């Protein structure tokens, strides 16, 4: 029997908050829409869907190749700088797609960086004729691919890493060649991890708003944003959200299923680490070149472009109040991390000591927030609290409550909570699950109360993990664009919003400084957490 105690009601409350966007979108689907949606259905909706799909399929193909090949080289072979590349490749996580987009535009545009480099080396000439011009779709595909491939790389690498050498030796013993071993043993057993990585890429790709917006490509996310901002039609925005959400939730199911499958490939007894093969000559050069090229394009290229712009246009250093943006970002990061970690600890502890199945279902439901694209979440958030405010207005004389939730720090933190509760809750849960319940029982039997067991045993054990969760939440919030963009208070800028605002005003050079700060903070956080990210066992 379920006990209706504080743990139950807390979990129910959190699950309800996190479920707000999904419930709002679901009900909005049956609401009446303006003529705009009908016009949209007959005109651009097909473009939105087809562009989203073209980008999705292309990004999946490229991230698969980049992630799997680099993971294969680094896991199975020794070549110059392979240890450096093993963690350096994840630095691409520090570059959001929209900053990569600025870099591509700046490099390939007429009289852009490529033009300057060629002029410096080979003298004056109209190189613009020969520098390829990337259209919006191609640019978006490249930018999103290079910013998301680390998902595939990290999961595939860890799957390769935890494959026992025994399998490979058995393959060799049965007469398989190196190539046959790769295709018949290594890749099939890493398949669940690769699919999980690709599912994450697909979810992020469909959720992307910044990159496609910079390249002016119409996709489902920009469609949602425009319906809300340009046509002031929240119902249409929610109906497009509904279509997108179906895709994303399907991908989430694939990802969850694949991760479960991947668990069967965890090392057990008799696990033998892989003996790396030392490459020489052309093979060594090939492996090095591939990893270097991926690292260069994904990290060095955008970083150097931002540095180049910042130095070339120093006036923006004075124009932009970078200290205030730093403080704003830190304020959001600190507040959101505190709220998320505190509530995640509370719910995890409740779930642990009450051992209720219903509580488990509730908490599992609470983690669906991470799958919801930021743009959908923000628009659904506005829809819900606008309707709530109207309702309160109708039945009481309190007045509008919109300001409390929309365009306020409180609302922003609440939206971050919905989006990142899964990250925080699961991060703490994964560590909590490692504390066997008999450890709690041992403490009780040694005379410790529940509170003392929590403070003396649980908290010291979870301490490192909590720090890591704070780092990961910080990384996500620093890079987060659409939620912050839509729900922030007036004139409240973070690195991401400041960079985007300048870029959308065609002031790409001005976007460089906040982008550079964003990348620097993100890089520090990634280096801090790289050991954890790379040790993920699927």
């Amino acid at each position, binding site marked *: 029997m379920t006990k209706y105690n504080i743990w139950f009601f807390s979990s129910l409350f959190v699950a309800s908050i996190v479920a707000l966007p999904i419930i709002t979108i679901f009900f909005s689907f049956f609401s009446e829409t303006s003529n705009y949606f009908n016009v949209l259905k007959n005109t651009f909706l097909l473009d939105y869907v087809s562009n989203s799909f073209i980008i999705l399929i292309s990004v999946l193909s490229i991230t698969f190749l980049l992630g799997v090949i680099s993971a294969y080289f680094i896991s199975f072979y020794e070549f110059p700088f392979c240890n450096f590349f093993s963690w350096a490749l994840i630095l691409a996580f520090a570059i959001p797609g929209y900053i990569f987009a600025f870099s591509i535009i700046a490099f390939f545009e007429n009289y852009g960086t490529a033009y300057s480099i060629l002029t410096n080396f080979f003298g004056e000439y109209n190189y613009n004729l020969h520098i390829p011009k990337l259209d919006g779709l191609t640019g978006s595909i490249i930018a999103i691919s290079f910013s998301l491939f680390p998902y595939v790389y990290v999961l595939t690498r860890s799957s390769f890493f935890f494959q026992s050498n025994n399998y490979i030796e058995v393959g060799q013993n049965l007469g398989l060649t190196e190539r046959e071993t790769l295709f018949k043993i290594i890749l099939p057993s890493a398949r669940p991890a690769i699919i999980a990585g690709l599912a994450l890429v697909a979810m992020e790709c469909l959720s992307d708003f910044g990159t496609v917006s910079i390249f002016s490509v119409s996709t489902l996310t920009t469609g949602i944003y425009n319906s809300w901002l340009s046509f002031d039609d929240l119902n249409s925005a929610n109906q497009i959200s509904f279509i997108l959400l179906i895709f994303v939730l399907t991908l989430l199911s694939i990802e969850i299923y694949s991760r479960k499958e991947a668990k069967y490939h965890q090392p057990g007894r008799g696990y033998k680490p892989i003996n790396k093969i030392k490459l020489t000559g052309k093979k060594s050069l090939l492996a090095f070149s591939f990893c270097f090229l991926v690292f260069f394009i994904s990290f060095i290229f955008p970083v150097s472009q931002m540095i180049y712009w910042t130095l070339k246009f120093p006036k923006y250093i004075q124009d932009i109040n970078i200290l205030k943006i730093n403080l704003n970002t830190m304020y959001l990061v600190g507040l959101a991390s505190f709220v998320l970690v505190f509530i995640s600890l509370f719910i995890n502890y409740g779930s642990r000591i009450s051992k209720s199945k219903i509580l488990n279902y509730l908490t599992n439901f609470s983690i669906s927030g991470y799958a919801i694209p930021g743009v959908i979440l923000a628009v659904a958030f506005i829809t819900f609290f606008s309707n709530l405010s109207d309702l309160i207005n109708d039945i009481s004389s309190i007045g509008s409550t919109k300001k409390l939730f929309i365009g306020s720090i409180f609302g922003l933190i609440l939206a971050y909570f919905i989006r990142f509760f899964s990250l925080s809750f699961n991060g703490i849960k994964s560590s909590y699950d*490692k*504390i*066997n319940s*008999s*450890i709690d*029982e*041992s*403490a*009780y*039997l*040694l*005379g*410790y*109360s529940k509170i003392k067991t929590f403070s003396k*045993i649980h908290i*010291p*054990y979870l301490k490192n993990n909590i720090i890591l969760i704070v780092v990961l939440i910080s990384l996500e919030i620093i890079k987060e664009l659409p939620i912050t963009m839509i729900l922030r208070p007036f004139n409240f800028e973070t690195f991401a919003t400041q960079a985007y605002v300048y870029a959308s005003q065609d002031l790409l050079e001005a976007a460089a400084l906040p982008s550079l700060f964003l990348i620097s903070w993100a890089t520090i956080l990634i280096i801090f957490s790289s050991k954890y990210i790379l040790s993920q066992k699927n």
Partner: protein
Amino acid sequence: MSNCFFEIKDGNFVASEKNKVNNVNLQIKEKGEIISLLGPSGVGKTTILRTIAGLQKLSSGEIFLKDKLISSNHTHTDPEKRNIALSFQDNSLFPNYKVIDNINFGRKRSNGNGFSYETEDIIKLLHIESILEKFPHQISGGEAQRVSLARSLMSKPDLLLLDEPFSYIDQNLKDEIQYSVKKLLKKINLTTIIVTHDSYEAFSLADRCGIILNQELKQYDVPYNVHHEPNSLEVAKFLNKGVFVNVKVNNNDCAVHSLQHEELGEIKGKLLKTYPAGKSVKLLLQPEDLIHDDQSKLQLEVVDRKFRGTNFIYTLKTKQGEHIPVFVHSHHIHQHEKAEKFGIKTPIYIDHLVCF
């Protein structure tokens, strides 16, 4: 109220539909007794320990410790207030604390029983001096079990519960540790209940031994009686120390009873239960019951021979197809091969004739 140091009255222990033990009555009359509970894996032994410790509720019945009711339908003293220590099978050391800190966690409640030993004594006794500065993940399963035991002992409980405490310890160290632990428990007069599936461990450590089979406490007695005088066919089969052969009861009236086996002839000894003359019964023959004699006229065919270090176990086949095990000292002057004849000393005399 109970007049015993510890008592379970009509206890029903339920962890799940399969994992339960019903109607348990068990008394520990004197403080300092060591009790073992023996049974196959999954029979509910651990459930009993967890319920005694207060980690699970008693389904029905009563549990008393030192005259105080600690578990019943209406009463449930919290585990932290019972002064009962439980050393878990999976040792449950606190992963983020060093071994020495884990042991010192036990001191929290050391105001319970007035023992005179110190941490150093326990550490030395359990041979864990060299691992004190290590973390639990850096030590072996056997070492972890010893640390867990040390931590439980440090809490100086009224009742110590040990769940398979020596299962991961190497055989060569096991005997020594078992001997030292038993010596210590007796010295400090600490009442202990040990759960194990190893009958040698149960018999060697305990003053009394309970056999749990098919969701019931089948027998509760001193180890000698459990081994030699199992009170049911189930217990005898579980202990698996012999075979059952078909015999007829000859004589039931004298001080020495007599049974008749078709091929082994007359078997004398003391029947534990009385049977009418002429009744067919099954007699438990244990390997130590028959004595090898090369000169004997009673010769059986050898079908198997196993070397067990100190002895051989020969398996002999009767004409009825029964396979009878017989111990022979491994220094015996010669060995018998398969299909050879093997002499058994007659007349056969067995102290306890266990029949069903």
